[in-house]
């Protein structure tokens, strides 16, 4: 009797030990074993990459793709039936009805335009279409052409009534191009789609903009890489990392879209005041904010404003920023000091 009791308790101990070990190991490795659903697609003239965690990751990613496509069909000036194309066509006439999403993005755009004193301007189309960056006709349009169309660039010509979902452009010849806010806005829509599809967590990346959704499985922060502006030619590398729990991240870099003509390199970040690419020593500005559209617009605004004024603008919004100048000096706003880390020897913090 005594003996079998001993055996039984011995067996119990062994069993408990096995269970405890399995639970411990499962806890330890569970996070690694959860495979996210990843997908890539093309929309808004760019590359869309999604990583979605949770049982319905695949469905959430499909919803994400659909969200980007739907948004493009509303805010593109190239799609004839889009709100923005119709708005441009109606310039100088009357108010037109637009989708609530378009109204909200236009409103965000005007907000950043106003507070950056026009350093970001959604009415850049008359100038940006002359340069045609990334298009088949990309070229330096010449100073005379730029001066001719510059007077049409003024965000104050756009009026938005978000409550009624209406907008208008006051003068004929003025036109809206949401290229500098659209990718961030797409991240907003994708994160919303993940939420509606009850995904567990996910990362949406549209061009250079990123949206974070939920808590990274396994705990800890999402780790994002800021691209080295000098990468390319055998160096597809990162210059720094950002560890973030949430938010939207956008980068405006002069390396992103360029062409050469007569020995000069032109980049796509145009200063709405001059019509020329902004030239103030910066090569890249990364912005972290709670809203994707705004993070995108703010990165352009801060790039065009330059380090000092750009930093002041971000502080006004409570946004985070990482500024890189052409001498590889890096300036980080106070609120990102703990999250940001330089990983390349070629870069150093300013000050």
């Amino acid at each position, binding site marked *: 009797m005594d003996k079998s009791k001993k*055996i039984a308790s*011995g*067996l119990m*101990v*062994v069993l408990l030990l096995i269970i405890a070990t399995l639970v411990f*190991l499962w806890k*330890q*490795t569970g996070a*690694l*074993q959860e495979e*996210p659903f990843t*997908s*890539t*697609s*093309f929309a*808004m*003239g*760019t*590359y869309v990459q999604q*990583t979605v965690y949770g049982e319905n990751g695949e469905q959430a990613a499909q919803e994400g793709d659909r969200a980007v496509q739907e948004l493009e069909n509303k805010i*593109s*000036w*190239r799609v004839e039936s889009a709100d923005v194309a119709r708005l441009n066509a109606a310039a100088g006439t009357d108010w037109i009805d637009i989708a609530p999403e378009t109204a909200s993005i236009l409103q965000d755009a005007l907000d950043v335009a106003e507070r950056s004193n026009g350093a970001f301007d959604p009415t850049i189309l008359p100038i940006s279409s002359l340069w045609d960056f*990334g*298009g088949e006709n990309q070229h330096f349009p010449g100073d005379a052409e730029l001066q001719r169309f510059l007077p049409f660039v003024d965000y104050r010509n756009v009026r938005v009534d978000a409550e009624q979902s209406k907008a208008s452009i006051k003068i004929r010849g003025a036109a809206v*191009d*949401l*290229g*500098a806010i*659209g*990718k961030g806005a797409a991240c907003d829509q994708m994160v919303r789609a993940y939420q509606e599809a009850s995904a567990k967590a996910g*990362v949406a*990346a549209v*061009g*250079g*903009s*990123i949206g974070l959704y939920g808590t990274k499985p396994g705990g800890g922060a*999402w*780790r*994002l*890489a*800021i*691209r080295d502006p000098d*990468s*390319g*030619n*055998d*160096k*597809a590398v*990162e210059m720094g*990392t*950002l560890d973030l729990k949430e938010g939207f*991240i*956008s*980068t405006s870099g002069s*390396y*992103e*879209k360029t062409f050469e003509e007569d020995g000069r390199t032109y980049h796509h970040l145009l200063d709405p005041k001059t019509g020329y690419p902004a030239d103030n020593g910066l090569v*890249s500005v*990364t912005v972290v904010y709670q809203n994707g559209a705004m993070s995108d617009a703010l990165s352009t605004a801060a790039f065009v404003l330059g380090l000092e004024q750009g930093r002041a603008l971000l502080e006004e919004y409570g946004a985070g920023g990482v500024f890189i100048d052409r001498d590889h000096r890096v300036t980080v706003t106070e609120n990102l000091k703990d999250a940001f880390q330089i990983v390349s020897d070629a870069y150093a913090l300013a000050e």
Partner: protein
Amino acid sequence: MSGRRETVRTFQKQDLLLIVFAVLLAAAAFSWFQLQPSRGLVAVVEQEGNVLYRIDLDQQAQTEILDLGGPYHVTLAVEPGAVAFQHSGCPDQTCVRVGKLTRAGQAAVCLPARISVRLEAADGEQAFDAYTGAVQWGKGP
């Protein structure tokens, strides 16, 4: 224990020790296997979001040229531990300018050809969850 040989052996102290030892051994092996920093770099080549190839770059012994054809005659250089767009007939050449991809999470895209190459870690452990800033991205919305 009586020590009588004819007793049917059921369960003894040595057996318990043996089982504990076996469990510990299994646990150790399992942890070792899990924590092993398996490199396993996989290049995923996609067109229009559909996977064309999955190439284990750690198994790659030498440089190979992968001809993807199409209107832009895209070719990839697949090397041990790296992959790059070697050629594309597209006007912007941004995919070629990206250079060699060597770490999980990196990607290069030829927008006109709608071909993308991204690196995945075989064990799912990416160095980064995403890259901000993009070398390219044709026409905006």
